[in-house]
């Protein structure tokens, strides 16, 4: 039915997948400056108190492989850096908040400063050093 189209589609698909994979590996979980309007989350939004100096908000879901590792990393960071709270939110039970923050993936980690302003945002499993660096920016800024 298709002649050479099938093999061409297979080759093109694999080429695009390699490209996307390489980009994902580079960018996944890297905290970025929060874009667009300034977003501020309150203790009421989070269902938990803000940290004294900063807060790490992790959105998780039921079918999320890297969420567990992300929880471990963020817990290690909050144990290490005083005044920082880790709040984990089940995305499914807070869909309104997920939509308003335009969260598309789990895990997504928001780094909030002491006032609850979203300073940085990482989608995908972040590296520990990157989280610590982002926290530094949130505490200073």
């Amino acid at each position, binding site marked *: *039915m*298709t002649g050479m*189209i*099938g*093999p061409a*589609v*297979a080759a*093109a*698909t*694999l080429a*695009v*997948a*390699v490209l*996307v*994979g390489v980009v*994902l*590996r580079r960018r*996944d979980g890297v905290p970025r400056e929060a874009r667009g309007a300034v977003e501020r989350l309150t203790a009421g939004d989070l269902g938990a108190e803000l940290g004294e100096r900063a807060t790490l908000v992790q959105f998780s*879901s*039921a*079918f*999320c*492989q890297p969420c*567990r590792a992300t929880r471990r990393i963020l817990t290690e960071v909050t144990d290490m850096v005083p005044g920082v709270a880790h709040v984990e939110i089940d*995305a*499914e*039970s807070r*869909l*309104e908040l*997920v*939509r308003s923050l335009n*969260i*598309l*993936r*789990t895990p997504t980690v928001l780094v909030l400063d002491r006032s609850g302003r979203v300073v940085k945002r990482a989608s995908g499993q972040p590296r520990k050093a990157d989280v610590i660096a982002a926290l530094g920016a949130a505490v200073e800024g």
Partner: protein
Amino acid sequence: MQVDPRALRFAAILTSVVLALVLILDSPWLLAAQAVVFALGAAGASPYGMIFKGIVKSPPGELEDAGPPRFAQLVGLAFALVGLVGYATQITPLALGATAAALFAAFLNAAFGFCLGCEMYLIIRRLLPAAR
């Protein structure tokens, strides 16, 4: 339930090979076979996983939750079924497009350990009205 992540990776590699062969050989029957494999995987009885267990006897270093990969198998099944509809109705772009999408996701998992099917979960949930 917990699964061996190496078995998942092995299954993703086999799935990629089979889906690439579907495109290369233009074989709806092979796609139908892969659809059955997706269905079994979603039910927690992946034939590819069983092949892995038959070959590799060493215990895994760590285990992973079985929920995300099983959900991803369900997403794979949906794409395979759409592809089969494309073959049955001779709508070539549908047959090739859906198979290519499944191959794309399987390859990302095989080569990079990235579960695209899992990522679909929140996006689908976001689109659905608040059910609970």
